[in-house]
């Protein structure tokens, strides 16, 4: 019941915010209100399942098990954070006459639809609905990528929609193959594409068809996740959208697509009767996705693209961890939580820097630390969080990941560790250049803006909140109860008892 209410709220607000009668200032307030209402409803349904008091709750085509509950609550958390940050971000842009009122309305409409689509994808039980949700997210975000309609944003949006739609079309082929396998396997027509029924009757699905289906789904939806050979749209799209939206994109959309693939992996493993076959994919694509960004980050002088490549690298880490074996799901869950929090905080910080200096190139930026110390410190802490320094969730997840990796795939773990070192060096080098080394040819901000001490804005509050959450989750996951929580969530999606 709560879910339908949440969806209603998410559908109603875009309509209101589009009507000209509602003034623009109210649209922003409405956005935050809608986000909090949706968050409230989703959390009330998700938390009992998450904390294990309630077993799985399947409500018709919606399906709330611990994993989808976790993903849904992360979606809504980032959605709420983005809504709050957008108030500051768009307020500042409107104040500086960079965006028209119509654009602000479009921004909010698309943001609500984007969140709605993601929730649908995360909680859906029917494969067709999942495909519908994924394609809806692509369409909603295309408008947002093309938001500034100038210098490359259009190009990024066009490439984004083209590549992602092609990818998801392949995903559709995979889904149809699963449907066909179900048909051949003798399931009733009504529930061909229902995930839970598929899991129950997995043994009757013919392994050959399921193998083809899994390959298509992995490559298709893998384009949405951004595995390496399929990642080319990600850096352009994530660096051209308004920063709060790229926080949602990088922070949570990639995770939603990844969980969809994990669901298919569950079904395929049951059908094939073993997890080794599917894990090979995750391992190979994971290693590729860690190595390529590792090298590019060494020479990436645009800080938003740097964060985009870091997202690709973290998705690669997730895939690698899942590829290690059934136990690899536990660090993957922790890593998902950590990456969402850290990456969204980073993009909010990038947004602040972009607001003040209007450029994403390091060579045109003065030393951020001297002019905007608050943003600089929070950005630095978030970078440390994402580089898995002790105290952040990623330290716990990468520790467990390397632990499992060393005993199962020694050589590939060493390669991934080298990749991680490359990434750490690349990102630290450019972050320090961004924060402390002002480029000589930096376009100085007019002195009027310069002299005023940097005010404590909403973004800083949200960033601080997320970093606090990151630290708290970091400590929580090191406690035995944290490990148990992560194992329970992983168990819900894994086909093998952990």
């Amino acid at each position, binding site marked *: 019941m709560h879910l339908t209410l949440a969806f209603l709220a998410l559908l109603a607000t875009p309509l209101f915010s589009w009507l000209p009668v509602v003034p623009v200032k109210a649209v922003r307030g409405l956005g935050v209100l809608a986000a909090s209402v949706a968050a409230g409803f989703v959390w009330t349904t998700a938390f009992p399942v998450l904390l294990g008091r309630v077993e799985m709750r399947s409500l018709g085509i919606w399906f709330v098990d611990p994993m989808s509950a976790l993903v849904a609550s992360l979606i809504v958390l980032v959605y709420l954070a983005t809504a709050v940050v957008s108030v500051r971000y768009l307020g500042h842009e409107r104040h500086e006459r960079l965006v028209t009122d119509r654009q602000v309305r479009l921004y909010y409409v698309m943001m609500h639809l984007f969140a709605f689509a993601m929730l649908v994808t995360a909680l859906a039980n029917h494969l067709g609905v999942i495909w519908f949700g994924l394609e809806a997210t692509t369409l909603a975000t295309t408008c947002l990528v093309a938001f500034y309609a100038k210098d490359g944003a259009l190009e990024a949006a066009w*490439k984004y929609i*083209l*590549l992602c739609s092609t990818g998801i079309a392949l995903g559709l082929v995979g889904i149809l193959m699963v449907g066909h396998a179900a048909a051949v396997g003798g399931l009733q027509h009504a529930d061909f594409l229902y995930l839970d029924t598929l899991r129950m009757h997995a043994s009757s699905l013919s392994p050959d068809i399921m193998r083809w289906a899994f390959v298509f789904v992995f490559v298709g939806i893998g384009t949405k996740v951004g595995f390496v050979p399929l990642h080319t749209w990600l850096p352009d799209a994530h660096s051209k959208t308004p920063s709060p939206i790229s926080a949602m994109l990088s922070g949570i959309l990639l995770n939603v697509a990844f969980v969809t693939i994990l669901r298919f992996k569950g079904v395929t493993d049951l059908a094939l009767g073993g997890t080794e076959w599917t894990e090979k994919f995750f391992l190979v694509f994971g290693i590729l996705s860690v190595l*390529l960004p590792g*090298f590019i980050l060494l020479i990436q002088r645009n800080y938003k693209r740097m964060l985009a490549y870091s997202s690709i690298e973290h998705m690669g880490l997730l895939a690698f961890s899942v590829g290690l074996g059934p136990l690899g799901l536990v660090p993957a869950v922790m890593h998902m939580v950590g990456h969402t929090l850290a990456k969204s905080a980073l993009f909010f910080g990038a947004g602040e820097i972009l607001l003040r200096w209007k450029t994403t190139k390091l060579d045109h930026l003065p030393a951020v630390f001297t002019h905007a110390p608050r943003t600089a410190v929070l950005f630095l802490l978030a970078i440390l969080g994402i580089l898995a320094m002790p105290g952040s969730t990623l330290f716990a997840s990468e*520790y467990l990941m390397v632990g499992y990796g060393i005993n199962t795939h020694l050589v590939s773990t060493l390669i991934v560790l080298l990749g991680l070192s490359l990434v750490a060096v690349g990102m630290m080098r450019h972050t*320090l250049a961004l924060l402390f080394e002002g480029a000589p040819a930096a376009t100085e901000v007019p002195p009027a803006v310069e002299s005023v001490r940097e005010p404590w804005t909403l973004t800083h509050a949200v960033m601080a909140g997320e970093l606090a959450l990151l630290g708290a989750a970091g400590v929580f996951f090191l406690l035995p109860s944290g490990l148990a929580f992560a194992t329970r969530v992983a168990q819900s999606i894994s086909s093998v008892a952990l």
Partner: protein
Amino acid sequence: MDPAFLSFAILASLAGTVFAALVALLGVRAHHFAHILLAFSGAVGAVASIAFVVQDFEVLEIASVRLFFGMTFALDVFSAIFFAIVGLVSCLCSVYAIAYVRQSHEGYHIASLNAATALFVLGMQGVLLSTNVLGFMAFWELMSITSFFLVMADRKPASIKAALFYFVMTHLGAAAILTGFFVLAQGTILADFRTLAFSAQVIPAPALALTFFLFLFGFGSKAGLVPFHAWLPEAHPQAPSHISALMSGVMLKVAVYGFLRMMLFLIPSLPATFGLVIIGLGLASAIFGALYAVIERDIKRVLAFSSIENIGIIFTMIGVGAYAFANRLPGLLVVALLAAVFHCVSHALFKSGLFLAAGAIVHATGTRSLERMGGLAKRMPLLSGAFLVLALSAAALPPFGPFYGEWMFLQSLVQSLAAPTDGAVTGVLVLVLFAVVLASALAIFAMVKLFGIATLGAPRSEAAEKAVEPPASMNAPILLLALLLAWMGVFAPALVSLVGGKDLVSAANRLPAIEIVGIRPDASLVVPAAVFLGLLACLGLVFLLRRLLSDAKRERSYHTWNCGQPIDASMEYTATAFSAPIRFFFRFLLRTKNTVVAIPVVATNPWICRRELFLNLRSVWMDYGYLPIARTCLRAASIVRRVQSGSVQLYVAFIFLALLVTLVIAL
């Protein structure tokens, strides 16, 4: 003192450090209080651990925390010694920092600097106390990342570059150590050191070899062993002086502690070749460190290279210990490891003292280059006195403590030469003997150059001219360290027994001259106290004779003899000139290139010209080791970036190629 009180004291020291970090964040006002608190907690930690060692308990359970999957922090004799070093040096450095940070015109962000210092000390204390893998790695990363921020405290491009280089090495090192732990753990993810020790007994030989090399790289890169040392002379000089004192004096020892903890307690006996590997790297570090310390002209880089040299000697001692164990020379094993720990303690003392003194000198003269110092002994008698004692101890000369560390090691080497083992072992021991002696000889040269050029003669720049004695709160720690080294010179056997050689020190408080084999030790028993007093007595005797024989009190001060040509400071011998013979004798190793540019004063007359010498001290390791690797990485990056060519067609082709390839391979 009963164990409960001691563990409470250690906990208080940890809590004090954490509280100091929090207080430091309050801002500049809390600067004094934060440092006093840090000093106090350091002192408490040092005293408690020394008390623990003196009463020679076996293991002291400090606390067991549910964090890190129920991890226990414990202190045993071995880690207590290092805990004492950390406590003592951090206490002195924070007293020094009170005046130093306020007056330094480097533009430090004081609140974050103090907080990072406190967290840095906490990281080191945590590493020493933790007995499980996750705790060790967490505090190790904390130590690395805070020291990374401290190196770039003044936020200048040079220090950021150095800090980045340091970050690369520590990140790779930490990854290597983590992998080493997991390969050793063979499956159990959250093992503590005891279970690691058991599982290490059964792992196959190749896995054991892999763990050894991973630990050697991990701890070696942090300690500054030669092939992985290139970051140390870049990073330590950039840090504020009290931080480079902490890093050089103590962080390197924590790395040595980690390596020793693995070698002694975890990895079962290794074949002799591994000992040879450690000896090889150690000797290379000692000789290269000493050579570069001799030819360097930046006062803090000289000290950084001298740290590499001392670390090389410590690793050689460990290597000789491992080699002796493999070749059944138990006596040599015991003395070698004992000498290694003794040298760790002495190096921690004199190196942190030297860095603090160097910091005071740099602060007074405003420059780090030795070429623009001089004449400071006349202007800073107190500081230069302590500096002299520290320099002599760094050169391991007789009356002071470090001499006895090297004395024990070389003495045991010479004694085991006569042992009836096969030729190869004796050959190795002879090689080690002469390499260590050459390294310490060059170290004497480097320390004399450092002290001589920095403090003696006429001041070579106005800043040096106007230099004035640093404030008492900066001088006190340096003087205390000098006194400690003198104390070590007198009570070396007490320290040896403290460090673990209790049964080695013979009853009459003589230095351990144990009968290894072959050479009877009876005639070679040396009582350091007697040597110290003997030298003082001779000094007194000479002073008395001079008073008796020469009544001439009259003195006349006049300018230095200059055979008619008025001389000024520029004619004095500089650091480059002083080290010219060594640079010439070891040019095949050092590859220094000096180019002389001659510009004729008058165009017509080519003979009379103004010559300028450009000497670049390119480091061999940097040119042939690190830069090629960096260049290949960047070239690979520029190749890989072409993947993002921008053409949509290519991107679509990528998707379908990926699909086809996966289909072909997977099915």
